[in-house]
C-alpha cells in the first residue's frame, strides 16, 4: 500500500466535510418540511420565590427559654426527616439551641447584661456568602446555588467530611448510622438521608420553590425574618435598617447571611 498516506488524507478530508455538513443537512431536512420533535423544557414554577442572597434575621429577644425555640426546631426537623439520636456523638441537627459564649465567641465583653448572656440562642447554617465548606468539598456536593443558598446535593456526597472541618460554625452533621430507624415520623414528601452522608439546613429550598417561607420562619410568629439581602425593599433589609445586628464569627470573613438582633 504505497498510496496509504494519500488515501488517509483523502479520507480525512471527506470525514471533515461530513462533519461540517451537519447544519446543511439539517437545513435541507427542515426545508423539505421535516420537523425536529418538540423538546421538553425545564423552568421555575411560577410561584417560586427567588433572591440574590436569601438571608435571615433572628430576634433573639423573643426567645427567653429553650421552650420558645422548641416549636421551630420541631417544625424543621419533622418536615426534613432529621433523625433523633440519644447518643450525642451521633447527633444530627439542622437548627438548634446554644449558649451565648458558643454562638458569639470573642463577643463576650465583661459585664454583659445578664439576660443577653443567659438567653438561649438559635443557630443554624449561615448560608455564608463566602462559604469555606463549598471550597473544601472535593465533589461539589456542597455548592452555592443561584439564590445564595449553600445547598447539599446528597446524591453526590461521599462522606469525606472535609466540609465539616471547614465550617467554623459546626453547622453540619454526619450520619454515622442509617438514620431511617431514628426518624420518629417520616415526612413522605421529603427524602431521608443514608449512612455516610453529611447534612445540614437547606434554607428550605424545597419550600421556597413552592412559594412558601422556611418552616422555622413560619413557626416563629415573626421572631425570624427572611428575605433577599440585596433587595432594598425586602423585609430583611427593613429589619436590618431598624435594628443593630451582629453575626457569628464575622472576623473569619465567611460573611454569614444569618443576622442576630441581640
Amino acid at each position, binding site marked *: 500500500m504505497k498510496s496509504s498516506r494519500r488515501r488517509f488524507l483523502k479520507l480525512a478530508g471527506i470525514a471533515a466535510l461530513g462533519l461540517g455538513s451537519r447544519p446543511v443537512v439539517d437545513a435541507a431536512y427542515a426545508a423539505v418540511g421535516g420537523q425536529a*420533535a*418538540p*423538546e*421538553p*423544557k*425545564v*423552568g*421555575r*414554577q411560577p410561584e*417560586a420565590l*427567588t433572591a440574590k442572597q436569601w438571608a435571615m434575621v433572628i430576634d433573639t429577644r423573643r426567645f427567653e427559654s429553650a421552650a420558645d425555640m422548641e416549636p421551630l426546631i420541631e417544625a424543621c426537623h419533622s418536615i426534613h426527616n432529621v433523625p433523633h439520636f440519644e447518643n450525642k456523638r451521633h447527633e444530627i441537627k439542622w437548627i438548634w439551641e446554644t449558649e451565648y459564649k458558643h454562638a458569639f465567641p470573642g463577643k463576650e465583653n465583661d459585664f454583659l447584661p445578664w439576660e443577653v448572656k443567659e438567653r438561649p440562642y438559635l443557630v443554624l447554617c449561615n448560608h455564608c456568602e463566602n462559604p469555606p465548606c463549598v471550597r473544601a468539598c472535593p465533589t461539589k456536593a456542597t*455548592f452555592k*446555588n*443561584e*439564590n445564595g*443558598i449553600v*445547598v447539599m*446535593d*446528597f*446524591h453526590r456526597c461521599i462522606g469525606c467530611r472535609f466540609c465539616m472541618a471547614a465550617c467554623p460554625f459546626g453547622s453540619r452533621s454526619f450520619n454515622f448510622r442509617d438514620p431511617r430507624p431514628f426518624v420518629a415520623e*417520616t415526612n*413522605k*414528601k*421529603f*427524602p*431521608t*438521608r*443514608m449512612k455516610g452522608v453529611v447534612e445540614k439546613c437547606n434554607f428550605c*429550598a424545597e419550600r421556597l*420553590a413552592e412559594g412558601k417561607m422556611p418552616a422555622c420562619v413560619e413557626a416563629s410568629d415573626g421572631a425570624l425574618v427572611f428575605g433577599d439581602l440585596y433587595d432594598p425593599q425586602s423585609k430583611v433589609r427593613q429589619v436590618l435598617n431598624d435594628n443593630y445586628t451582629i453575626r457569628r464569627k464575622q472576623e473569619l470573613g465567611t460573611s454569614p447571611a444569618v443576622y442576630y438582633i441581640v
Partner: protein
Amino acid sequence: MPTNNKRMYDKGMVLAGLVIFVVVVTFPFWYNLGKAAPPPEPVLTEKAKAAEKCVESTEFMKAEHMQLLDVWRDTVVRDAKRAYINPEGKTYMMSLSNTCLDCHDNKADFCDKCHNYASVRPYCWDCHIDNPKETE
C-alpha cells in the same frame, strides 16, 4: 521426510473427558432451555391508568426513565428549577417522591417488577421514601 507419527495416547479417556467437560459447561443453557422467566408486567394503578400518558410517551419512559430522572435530579438540586414542561406543554413538578410516586404508589408491583427481572438495584430508595401515600 518428517515422521508423521502423531499418535493420541488414551484416546478414549481424552474424548470422554472432553464430552463431559462440554456437557458440564453448557449445562445451564440446555437445562433452562425453554424455561425463560416470563417478562414482567408492571401493574398500573387506577390513577396511572386514568392519566393515560406519563410525563413522556410509554416507549420513552420504558427505555429512558433513568436518564429522565437523572436530569430531573440535577436540574432540581443544582439549578433550583423544579418545573418540567413536556413536549405537549403540560407542566409537572420534577419529583420522584411527589410526582412519579403520586401515580405509581405501588412500588412493589411497578418499579420492583422490572428491576428485579433485570437484576438492577437502583439506590433511589435508600433515601426516597417509596410510598408517599402509605400513611396519608
